[in-house]
């Protein structure tokens, strides 16, 4: 597959030089040093690798670099303005919605994508949307609380 020399990441074009067959996950982490996005399973089952492609939650572990094209990539590092946490990130802290923290980036990105589509989701809708994200420390109820809090904060910010 041809090499890829440019991507659009977190609002800016970025130069690189990588084999198009590499996974997007690996390139983000290993070439661009954006290590906030994590590897958990490599088969899109756990959600730790979730990024946004043109605003759509995507499992970067099964995306070939070569297929990304000009789509805008948003990673956890791109959430929130410089120095300030995004309301969703602040909500995760407030609700203590993490223990080991490894699933947290993926949880926040998936939740962010949900709240873009549905700013006021019911609990059932949150569960359905988030069910593809695994937390092995099983902090699930706290994460639900954080997403509800974050949704509220995001609405108020508008």
């Amino acid at each position, binding site marked *: 597959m041809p090499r890829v020399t440019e991507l659009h990441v977190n609002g800016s074009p970025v130069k690189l030089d990588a084999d198009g067959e590499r996974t997007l996950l690996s390139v983000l982490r290993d070439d661009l040093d954006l290590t906030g996005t*994590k*590897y958990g399973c490599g088969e899109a089952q756990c959600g730790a690798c979730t990024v946004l492609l043109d605003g759509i939650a995507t499992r970067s572990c099964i995306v070939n670099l070569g297929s990304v094209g000009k789509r805008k990539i948003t990673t956890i590092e791109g959430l929130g303005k410089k120095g300030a*946490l995004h309301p969703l990130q602040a909500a*995760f802290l407030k609700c203590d919605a993490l*223990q080991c*923290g490894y699933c947290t980036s993926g949880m926040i990105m998936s939740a962010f994508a949900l709240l873009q589509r549905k700013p006021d989701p019911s609990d059932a809708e949150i569960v359905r949307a988030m069910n593809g*994200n695994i937390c092995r420390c099983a*902090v699930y109820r706290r994460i639900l609380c954080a997403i509800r809090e974050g949704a509220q904060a995001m609405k108020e910010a508008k």
Partner: protein
Amino acid sequence: MHKGTTSRVGFKGQAVHVDIEPERYELAAAPVYRFDVDRRQFFKVLGAGVVVLLFVEAAIAQESGGGSARSGRGGSRPTELGAWLHIGEDETISVFTGKTEVGQNIRTSLAQAVAEELSAALDRIELVMADTDRTPYDLGTFGSRTTPDMALHLRRTAAAAREALLDLAAERFHVDRAQLTAIDGKVISRDRKQEMTFGQLTRGQQLVRTVTDDVPLKPAADWKVAGTSAPKVRGADFVTGRHRYTSDMKREGMLHGRVLRPSAWEATLGALDVTAAEAMTGVTVVRDGNFIGVAAADPLLAARALDAIHVEWIPNPQISNDDLFEHLRKHARGAPDANEGERQTRDILLKQSYTIAYIAHAPLEPRAAVAEWQEKKLTVWTGTQRPFGVRSELAQAFGISEADVRVIVPDTGSGYGGKHTGEAAIEAARLARAAKKPVKLVWTREEEFAWAYFRPAGIVDIESAVRRDGTITRWHLHNYNSGTAGIRCPYEVSDVRTEFHRSASPLRQGSYRALASVANFFAREVHIDELAAKLKMDPLAFRLRNLEEPRLRAVLEAAANAFGWKREKLGPNRGFGIACGMEKGGFLATCAEVLADRDSGSVQVTRIVAAFECGAVVNPEHLKNQIAGCVAQGLGGALFEAIEFQNGKVMNGRFSDYRVPRFSDVPKMDVVLVDRKDLPSAGAGETPIAGIAPAISNAIFAASGIRLRSLPLVPDGLKVQEA
């Protein structure tokens, strides 16, 4: 201290025994160290200030089952440094501990303990953790021991530091010491005319203090910082993706490593041809004994290099999980004679068997290591719960001195007992040595499922007798392979016999959260329920009738009250179940409500209440988190998790085949904390997981009349509905 505590790490003058449970198969006994402290070193590294050293009796580890104790030299009791603390001129308070942070939030609770005793602000406390060059020796972060041991060590160390600061201030202020108080990082005189910050007091000092046994500690009832739900230290680093786990680390010139795995367990090497891989540009291939690996500039190249290796494996036929329990029985050591005559009794007898499957830890961060050689010195970053144990493993693997090995554990993406050993560290270091560059090695999820160790499978046989009036008169329990944790019977029974029998495990096995408590609580609490059913007695009343331990009675009652325990038959297909137990200083009672339909076969867990007491609570919200996490994680092992294996291979070794609890699996849950400020704090990271399986099994029986005696209970699936 409740009966059943088997380990204490004490201070000078106190006896110390650390029993390693037999089911910690992956551990080797730890050597005893004598730590010679060069006090000048502290100030060289840390800068001027005050250093407080805590010496503890060295942990003398004994292998259970008759292994010989490894003792220190000569007649004197060996001591080692347990912790140290440094107060610097810049007001930072650095605390050094060999414990690891793997998501149990001890980075926060230990900081709270220090802030409390020292009377300093929480955000001034910096914990340096799990670095074998900088922190004191530690046996490992497991066994729920951090709170009862390390928190206590750090409290004493911090209290001694506080006393040292008061002494310094008394000199400076020319005031009687009794006139001074330490508060909010300052020492203030009673008349408020004089005050100095801790940093100011330490300026120009190089003062070393050793903690004495009699340093006064603040009683838990007076806690202002400990005992509160302080937010997770460094939490912002995790929600922003800034925190670097081992697998996120980068070193100059670093390569990515992969290991060639055998086709199955116990397969041996037939033919091997690495020439194609070696010919690839930028690839290093290593073949060393039974280790075959590659390192390359990016993970894709490394994967391609691995694929380019031509290899033939000779399989070694093995059993499948269909034959597992028969196999465990057949190879059991010391099993009771089947024809042993039992004493005659007019009591009601019950004899049942319970089985427990192998399950995987499946930590979301797979094991990983970054290894770097600098001349003779090896540094490895790795997510392990035993940095010092891994240091030994590395020294042994490479035939070098431990002094030339440094292991650093970044805050890690969980372990649950699965990250005690140093495979990834050794693999990365071997590749790094050959490539002469740092190597990062991250196990794939498939490797995690196939090549890590599992929670032991097991069989528990129970034979009991009970009088018509509800008194249990006999309790004979035999556990095969899963272990001894939680095996003790908490009920008052005169004829008690509990025995553990080793067997031959076809799968690699080792520590898992709560160890054999899950198996032993499950078998016991289901069996207790079966006895109650035989007598047509309420399961709660039956337990209370046979229980004297007040702390266990207290959580049983707390759980039952919070849950709304009822004896009467509920609606169709609806049932309540209860279970209780005590282990490692924690007292647990769990109630479950299920909807179980005999006809459709569907089971829904609608509600859980867990009551827990572990002495004085250091951080209530984090404790609730741990308990809720235990329950939700435990749902997996209770309901649907099981390793399927055949002829040396895991058949369901990925998340698409091995079901783990997800958002939709978590029922409505309430956690009731019983806070005993008058009792020493015990650990809580494990025991709460052990009540969920029996509570659910008992609830399923109440709802449907079906008695389930095997874990997992309903592997075909679970549906959850909010009550």
